[in-house]
């Protein structure tokens, strides 16, 4: 008997509405398929900037993972990446530890031994803890304070609680708060701004840098570009924070509370008119004028170049990429392309896009990567010319792919422009 893959068409999903999302699309209602397409989703510590790697965002810091061996297993992979091999340490918990919590008494000693083993003292020690301590109710702040006193170096908690992934403070939100928690109040400098949200730099030619400079900003800080600990600490001098990833909202709120630095949030978008509108609102909020015509024209030119060369291209869009899957799908539809399939996580917030997708392309199929039925996905049933995202590439290995998930982060017109340039280059290569 042939097993069916679950999907729902955009029109049908839009009709269900955000309060009636089918159970098949809710990860809490079924076992989770950890498809090769989606490993980075299902194991937040495994690929890209998961909690463990993100915890090392503070320049000069090292990390001690305090957990059963299984939690640190895939870090072997990270250790092979440049610069990380010397920064990860492990305190393995045994059967007694996970029941009694006696490992907590060893942490100060372990931190001291790690610090003593290094040629140069680290700027900070991140203590990464996992589901076991979530269940034990460990007061890691207190444990870290004790360790700080023992070694005279800041020791900070870093929570890799997979159990709370869909909770109020998911791990990637918590780690963003942790990595800014060492900042101490300083005199604010009116011409300094922090870009918060990512662990790798934004594209060097991102227009936001020029826009901020033209508005009088002289220093733009990003944690990933801080060369040393002092430069990191100077982020406390910022006049305001620009939050470019919603997972950094909690960190921004914490910074506002502790350091009285306000924040403004901007969203990564791929609909060119929405990018323009967002900059208008941003300008109004700051009381400045933004001339974005040049960047708008460049992005528009890239969209037109691709669209004229490859009109009405049929796409499949994944979720392992630097974009909101549904917003990107909507953007492509609005530029005149087809979106045959979307592999995404449907949440109530996505309905603002899903409703519009349903109007433009009611038969777009929406899949969830995590459904057990995705084992049986067969691409021969669909005609897709191009895919965006690593997961979409897995499902359609013969289609032209742009993975669009590099560590360098796209944003604004610049991101849009580069995406369409990459799409065109990929199609051109196929046609050579």
């Amino acid at each position: 008997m042939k097993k069916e893959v679950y999907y729902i068409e955009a029109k049908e999903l839009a009709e269900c509405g955000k309060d009636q999302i089918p159970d098949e699309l809710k990860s809490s209602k079924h076992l989770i398929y950890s498809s090769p397409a989606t490993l980075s989703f299902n194991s937040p510590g495994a690929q890209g900037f998961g909690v463990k790697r993100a915890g090392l965002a503070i320049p000069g810091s090292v990390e001690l993972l305090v957990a059963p061996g299984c939690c640190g297993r895939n870090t072997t992979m990270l250790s092979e990446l440049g610069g990380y091999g010397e920064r990860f340490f492990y305190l393995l918990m045994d059967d007694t530890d996970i029941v009694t919590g006696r490992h907590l008494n060893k942490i100060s000693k372990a931190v001291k031994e790690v610090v003593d083993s290094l040629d140069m003292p680290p700027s900070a020690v991140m203590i990464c803890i996992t589901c076991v301590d979530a269940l034990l109710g460990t007061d890691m702040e207190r444990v870290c304070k004790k360790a700080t006193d023992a070694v005279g170096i800041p020791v900070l908690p870093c929570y890799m609680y997979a159990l709370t992934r869909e909770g109020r403070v998911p791990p990637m939100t918590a780690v963003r708060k942790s990595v800014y928690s060492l900042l101490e109040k300083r005199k604010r400098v009116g011409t300094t701004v922090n870009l918060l949200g990512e662990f790798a730099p934004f594209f060097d030619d991102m227009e936001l840098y020029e826009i901020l400079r033209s508005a009088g900003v002289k220093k733009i800080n990003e944690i990933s570009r801080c060369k040393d600990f002092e430069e990191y600490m100077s982020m406390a001098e910022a006049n305001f924070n620009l939050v470019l990833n919603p997972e950094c909202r909690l960190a921004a709120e914490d910074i506002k509370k502790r350091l009285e630095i306000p924040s403004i949030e901007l969203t990564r978008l791929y609909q060119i008119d929405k990018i323009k509108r967002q900059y208008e609102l941003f300008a109004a909020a700051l009381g400045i004028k933004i001339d974005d015509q040049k960047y708008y024209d460049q992005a528009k030119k890239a969209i037109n170049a691709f669209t004229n060369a490859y009109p009405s291209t049929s796409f499949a869009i994944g979720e392992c990429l630097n974009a909101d899957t549904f917003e990107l799908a909507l953007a492509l539809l609005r530029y005149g392309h087809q979106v045959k399939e979307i592999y995404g996580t449907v949440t109530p917030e996505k309905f603002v896009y899903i409703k519009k997708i349903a109007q433009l392309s009611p038969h777009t199929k929406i899949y969830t990567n995590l459904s057990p039925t995705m084992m049986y996905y067969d691409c021969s049933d669909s005609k897709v010319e191009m895919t965006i995202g690593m997961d979409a590439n897995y499902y359609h290995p013969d289609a032209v792919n742009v993975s669009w998930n590099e560590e360098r982060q796209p944003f604004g017109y610049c991101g849009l422009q580069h995406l369409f340039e990459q799409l065109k280059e990929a199609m051109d290569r196929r046609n050579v």
Partner: protein
Amino acid sequence: MKGLLKYLSPFAPDQSGATSVLYDLEGITVICDAGGCTGNICGFDEPRWFEHQSAIFSAGLRDMDAILGRDDRLVDKLKDTAQKVHAKFAAVIGTPVPAVIATDYRALERMGEKRCQMPVIAIECTGTRLYDEGEEETYLALFRKFARKDVERDDKAVGVIGMTPLDISLTQGDTFLQEKLQKEGFERIYSYGMGSGLEEVKLAGSVQKNLVVAPAGLKPAKYMEKNFGIPYEVTYPFLGENFLNQLKQISGKKVLIVHQQVAANEIRENIRLSHKGEKMELNVGTWFMQPKDLKEEGDLVFKTEDGFIKHVEEEQYDVIIGDALLHRPLKEFKGTYISIPHFAVSGKLYDGR
């Protein structure tokens, strides 16, 4: 300090071992975790994940599932998946989360079998132990549950126990072995853990003999000997020609071999054969299980990174043979290091040469 790793990273845990044995058995494997353990297994410890599919799923536990012990929800999810996926049985694999909340695995088995109308086994992994313990427990659970007593002896069939990528660092050990065993007259090779399915496990009581290729296979092989009268041999036929030639070139007097015990024993025997008449000290050390039957006097089990470093410093070896990752802590070692991958250590495959 016990448990502290400053140079090494953790080795494959018990849940990876259990899943590895089950990978090709056409069942549903449910890792009883929040998602991270499954990601570790599929993304790192199971190289076959990128070669061919297996129905491995995460239970997707959330904090309230663990706090309230909602096993019934897990069984509901299992039933839902059993209706959507082709499978002959289901296995539930433990992780630290159920270990902390003391999940009753036998109850899970009973509830699962009743609701899903298919056999269910549960393997009590904790994530704190090593892969070989998970493998051993899984082999035993499979033979106890599925090996049929009513099968006739088949002299053309041979069983292989302990053949997983974690142990042999190959993903196609079954094809590697096929030619060799066919030459010995075997027509049916039941390689549990790699290549063979549940039907072969059911026929495990029919084979002429079992080959044990890793320490985790020894206890299950003894179980089959005791209950089915099947003899076993311990062997490791996976060393390639280039590597064996390298062993012939060894010129030192004092050699340490670090691997899983069966592989290490095979390396030691090869050195002995190629250096007949030479006075050499050949020590085997392992980070994993070391059954009494497989060890020689002086063989070691390493428990801590510090202990490993200290031993190597004190013993002044001329040659060390082991996974390349194990070289990392040995900063003071001045001898020759010959690397041979052990997937459970570094996650690196052996190219078979």
